[in-house]
């Protein structure tokens, strides 16, 4: 059952120290800023964060990093022109980094959500990022075994939710959110609009409510 929260603080309550937290967004598009700031106030420490980037400028994910709450980040593209918070933490040895090819990041979270124990991919074959991983020849080609990324919590952003938790997104702000929603024990969503069941087109729902645990409406 999906819980409609009255504040972002309520929505992130109970996140434990040491949790693995999926954070939606590609750059700032789709980043759940309100939930991240609430998580900073909530105080959970020693987090492993999974996200595409390692924060932009001083906002959102970068602010969570700057607050010293993140032990490790798994992402595809940490190095950006405005990723100075991460860059400083990384160079001073204060944060662990696991670089994951973007397609593996998405597919490994999908696997966690879909009950797949592991999958073989050609991405990374023969590169540093496949070192130490099992490989297998299938139909004459070499593949690398990749394992699921499951998480305790997903913090994502969507455009509109109904009160059953069905979600629709807007344009490329969709990005990782639907996959993350499937891969976390608790999925928390900030949305711009909340509507009654029956308002969203059932053919166009992207994330069915079964994947959504908590919703909070934020002013955009």
């Amino acid at each position: 059952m999906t819980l409609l929260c009255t504040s972002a603080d309520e929505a992130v309550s109970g996140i434990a120290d040491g949790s693995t937290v999926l954070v939606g967004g590609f750059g700032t598009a789709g980043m759940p800023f309100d939930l991240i700031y609430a998580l900073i106030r909530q105080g959970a420490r020693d987090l492993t964060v999974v996200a595409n980037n390692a924060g932009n400028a001083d906002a959102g994910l970068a602010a969570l990093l700057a607050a010293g709450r993140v032990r490790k980040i798994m992402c595809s593209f940490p190095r950006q022109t405005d990723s100075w918070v991460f860059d400083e933490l990384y160079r001073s040895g204060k944060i662990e980094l696991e670089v994951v090819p973007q397609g593996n990041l998405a597919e490994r979270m999908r696997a966690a959500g879909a009950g797949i124990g592991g999958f073989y991919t050609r991405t990374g074959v023969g590169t540093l990022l496949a070192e130490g991983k099992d490989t297998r020849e299938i139909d004459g080609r070499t593949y690398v075994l990749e394992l699921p990324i499951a998480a305790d919590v997903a913090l994502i952003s969507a455009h509109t939710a109904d009160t059953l938790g069905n979600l629709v997104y807007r344009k490329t702000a969709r990005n990782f959110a639907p996959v993350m929603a499937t891969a976390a024990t608790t999925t928390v969503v900030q949305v711009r609009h909340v509507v009654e069941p029956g308002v969203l087109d059932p053919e166009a729902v992207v994330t069915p409510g079964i994947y959504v645990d908590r919703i909070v409406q934020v002013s955009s």
Partner: protein
Amino acid sequence: MSVVSPSIVEHTDRGPLGRDEMARVLAGDIPRGAYVNLGIGQPTTVGDHLPPESGVIFHTENGMLGMGPAATGDAIDPDLINAGKFPVTELPGASYFHHADSFAMMRGGHLDLCVLGAYQVSASGDLANWHTGEPDAIPAVGGAMDLAVGAKQVFVLMSLFTRTGEPKLVRECTYPLTALRCVDRVYTDVATFEITGGDEVLVRETWGISFHELRSRLDVPLIVATP
């Protein structure tokens, strides 16, 4: 045995291509109606030479087919960006999808072509474009490894030499690899190349340099096509 004679266009009456000219040359080789992903940085500029009338449909790995040109002014929408995180537009017939679906499209071999930048390309088509290997460098791979193995054809767009004059088309890459034997063509400021799958690289066209001079400046066996 047929008589082999060189089949190459040498533009020795001019200098190397400028960056915009490089993008235009590459764009000219993209078939009408192709599904194409342009890597971040210089490869993105190839799109400037492929307007909607070209019939080329652009994929951006952050979840869209049918991406239009860069957005400006009031058309800028923070929810609508490309893989380089710049605002873009939506063309009629566009569609949005999530990241796993977007990379399934890429990794499943459905894109006709991707254009990537590179630090190095080897004679056998190995690509190095994600990591300088320097100890203090922050590695960032993005979607490069997925694109390199997934697209039906991989075109590289890069200057042929580094600022210090080192060739970037090499026998073996010394930088960390992005993918093995994935590159099909290399578009540079002084020449365009086809990776043949053999030991030799085929030169199709040169600018500001002759084939013979090019051969003397690269450590890679070069050939030209049989006409």
